[in-house]
């Protein structure tokens, strides 16, 4: 990309970002930017300036009838799509939260993580978050499931036939009297995975899950050295396993 070509388009970047190019010009600029890292870099820089413009407008309260009208249309759409509406019935996320509360914590973190677990399930359903599927050996298969968008720790479960391996990354250093303990949910019941583990210096940690049959959720908590019979802290990672 020559400087002259870049300079010619660079002049129009601000107008493009402000939506002030004619449609044909905008298309041409986009085509150029695909091959011009300098333009893309300048666009990234200017994006923040444009994105804050609507934040600076004078605030007006929308009339309540707008919300009523909007939600009326939305609920009608949802009913037509066969979606359970209203909060009285709860729904899958509520039930997941109740189950997690039953573990003995009852904290908001559990419910939030239940939400994240559901999010990951929804993502799996919508965009095919399941990874892998290859690696067959002697008729077996390997499938990798990844955690939802939980902040901090990332987790994945690599399932191979009836067993699996849980892998964590970005785990913070634990106090000396704490260990990681994995849990699985099977048929609505929580079971401890009989293996305690700790992260290495890079924050990576892994453990084996001997029996993955019927498991629809894998979680990790930090527990006192020696492990616990039931989780005593909020999970640091959850990995939904679509059935």
């Amino acid at each position, binding site marked *: 990309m020559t400087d002259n070509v870049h300079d010619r388009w660079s*002049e129009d970047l*601000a*107008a493009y*970002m*402000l*939506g*002030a*190019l*004619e449609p044909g010009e905008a298309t041409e600029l986009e085509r150029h930017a695909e091959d011009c890292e300098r333009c893309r870099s300048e666009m990234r*820089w*200017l*994006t*923040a*300036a*444009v*994105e*804050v*413009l*609507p*934040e*600076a*407008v*004078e*605030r*007006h*309260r*929308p*009339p309540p*009838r*707008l*919300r009523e*009208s*909007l*939600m009326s*249309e*939305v*609920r009608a*759409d*949802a009913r037509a*799509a066969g*979606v*359970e*509406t*209203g*909060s009285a019935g709860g*729904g899958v*996320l*509520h039930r997941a939260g109740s189950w997690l509360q039953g573990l003995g914590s009852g904290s*908001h973190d559990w*419910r*939030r993580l239940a*939400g*994240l677990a*559901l*999010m990951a399930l*929804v*993502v799996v*359903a*919508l965009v095919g978050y399941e990874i892998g599927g290859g690696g067959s050996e002697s008729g077996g298969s390997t499938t990798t499931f990844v955690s939802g*968008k939980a902040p901090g720790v990332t987790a994945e479960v690599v399932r191979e036939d009836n067993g699996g391996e849980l892998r964590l990354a970005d785990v913070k250093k634990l106090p000396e009297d704490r260990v990681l303990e994995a849990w699985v949910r099977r048929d609505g019941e929580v079971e401890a995975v009989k293996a305690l583990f700790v992260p290495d210096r890079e924050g990576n940690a892994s453990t084996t899950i001997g029996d993955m049959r019927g498991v629809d959720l894998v979680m990790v908590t930090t527990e006192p050295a020696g492990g616990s019979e039931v989780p005593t802290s909020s999970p640091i990672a959850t990995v939904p396993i679509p059935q």
Partner: protein
Amino acid sequence: MSVKRETAERLADEELMPLIAAKDPEAFEVFYDRHGGVAYSLAYRIVGERAAAEDVTQEAFISIWRSGARFDRTRGSVRSWMLSIVRNRAIDSLRSKAGKAPKLTFDDDAVLEQRPSEELTEEEAMRRETASEVRGALGQLPGEQSKVIELAYFGGFSQSEISRMLGVPLGTVKGRMRLGLEKIRGELAEGLA
């Protein structure tokens, strides 16, 4: 299948979007409650009439409800994506009414201050700070730079139209837009430093 409202309230926008795409009205209601105000304000700023602003906001949110799966998190925040939809619809509405002139002021400090303090979440407080910085940056811009930015972003005019409206060469309009945005960007960067 829908989530409870209090559960949805704890989710980030990016986490709400898959639920909205799955047609969860509770998730959508939380999304509207978070962003309906700024969306309506932006629409009103552009179209200048309450009824038209309501129509624009309703159309934009229905569009999000029916196409929530199209949000691409690699291209920015949900809020920015939503506001770009509102802006585009508002500009379309404005263009359908010939001769409509945009409002050209940013004096919203007093209105913001009138809002009850209990409504201020930490996130909203940060947005106010950002809004304040932007208004400050815009206020410091030479008038000719802020005018071309406002005509383009809030008026929906192309740079060629602005050139003709203001009677200045096209290159001058381009330069003013660029300098103005760079100044705002610089102010934001300083604010973050």
